[in-house]
């Protein structure tokens, strides 16, 4: 991660000769094989996959319990509130927590890494 890059200004212009390069697959193969881009992709995968699997797992298990283990769902926790409502409430907290973790990490890293990848691409092919 090169630290000196400016924050993304999103003002990157499409290269004029982009159309000619579209036909040439190797140009883009090299672009996605570049160090900056694979770093970006790796950061994304490492963040997204665990979050996605954990939240999907929790929600799928809760929904299966709601279908197949109604006895367990019915166990009272506080007053009339049962395990089922506790799980539903936990899904709300989970969704919010995942969203906050993702957005914070993405804001801190993705945009900077994406501009680095774009800058590297343009540096290799001054147009």
């Amino acid at each position, binding site marked *: 991660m090169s630290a000196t890059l400016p924050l993304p200004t999103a003002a990157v212009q499409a290269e004029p000769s982009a159309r000619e390069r579209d036909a040439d697959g190797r140009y*883009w193969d090299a672009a996605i094989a570049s160090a900056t881009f694979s770093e970006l992709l790796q950061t994304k995968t490492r963040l997204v996959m665990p979050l996605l699997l954990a939240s999907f797992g929790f929600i799928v298990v809760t*929904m299966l319990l*709601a279908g197949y283990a109604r006895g367990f769902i019915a166990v009272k926790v506080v007053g009339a509130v049962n395990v089922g409502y506790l799980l539903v409430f936990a899904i709300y907290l989970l969704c919010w927590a995942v969203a906050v973790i*993702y957005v914070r990490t993405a804001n801190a890293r993705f945009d900077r890494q994406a501009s680095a990848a774009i800058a590297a691409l343009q540096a290799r092919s001054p147009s």
Partner: protein
Amino acid sequence: MKALTLAIFAVILTLTLYITYWAAKRTRTASEFYAAGGALSARQNGFALAGDWMSAAAFLGFSGLIALYGMDGSLYAVAALAAFLVILLLIAEPMRNTGRYTLGDVIAYRMQTPQARLAAVVGTIVVNLAYMIPQMAGAGALMKLILGIPYETAVVLVGIGMLVYVLFGGMIATTWVQIIKAALLLGAAALLVLLLLAQVGFNPFTLFSSVELKYGEKMLLPGGYLKHPLDPLSLALSFMLGTAGLPHIMTRFFTVPDARTARKSVLWLMFLAGSFFLVTTLIGFAAASFVGQDAIKAADKGGNLALPLLAQYLGGGAGTLGGQIFLAAICAVAFATILAVVAGLTLATSGAIAHDLYVNVIKRGQVSEQQQVRIAKLSTLAVGALAVGFGLLAQGFNVGVLVILAIAVAASANFPVIVLSLFWRRFNTAGVIGGVAVGLVSSLVLAFIGPAFMKGDAIFPILNPTILSMPLGFLGAVLGTLIGGRDRANEARFSEVLFQAQTGRGVGR
């Protein structure tokens, strides 16, 4: 009393029309018409997304389901929040980075063939119409109840109102109407929760026990509405994957300048709409214990008026000034909700017809800017007429099946194609066609032979077909790809699509 109700309606509608007038002066280019010029902030788009997502089905439907069936309604509500996890983590940013106005743009960017764009158009139109009809029918039923005007008149009024928003103000007006509506709706919900909690000494647990005491423990357990053991899972999958295939939600990501704003707007949505979905359990239970299930069912068999009736009760009861004001205000917000959601759906549909079908498939992009806007408005008119026509036919029809249909088709026909376009190198045009065709047919057929449509004689036992039709959609996409054969040029293109989708090179001027 009726004059008061009409006055409150008039105030809210005038406000939205004023916004439209203001927006109309700012809508000249196709980009402004379809995507508000791509210049919204995260908070603006977050509120607009929340407005889109808290449609009448969510706002009236969830609280009604909770009031009548208990926990199953709460499962619907939480699934509607979980829906945005997949969008946030996988879809929103690549969507912003690869598309301009429509879902078809994203698919066509990957495949570069008119056939692939056409398949996306079919998916968009079917999903949007299936989503639009229940909204129109809901508006008709609501207006009939509140203002006593006939169903047909109400549907035509919704059609005209929505066309005014879209034709004059385009996406800018539609967005601002959604923002105002979301704020009104959240404000009303906050007031409602405050008043209902005051009734139970600010102890929400009292509501759970009072519902249990009055209607038995089954209200606090699943199975009242979602009968089959696989129903909860299929429902959750449907929301979590189907929402990422709803074109009018996806279009919202084209209204922001970059990926960073797209992801921040989803965060806004998840807290705004999520808090509302969380309190629907309290609203539904309060309606069941204060208003009573019999009164709710008497007003509407499906329970859709539980929330307005609770507002009337908390305002002081039927016949009192406070009760009438609160009821009228809630109904006016509901009406504005329906208008705004239908307007968003119409825009997304007209985008598919004008931008994808006419400009890009028929004219191959050889259309001037003014012509584009003119064609967009013409197709908006056509879509509006179609929506009113279907809305009139839908009277007394089970609208529940249509909502299920819309989201199941989105999960089965649109979602596999979007995901594979963005993440699978070998995916090709034949795969797009296979995915859309198989997903569409399987979700339609399974919904129509399922319990929502055939009641007791259902051949397919699960309410929501997604659990089977979504894997079938993926299968169709994969088989189509394999049958289509290797396409080296297309596979080489994937590298560019991947780079573009993940970096957003050149997006946002």
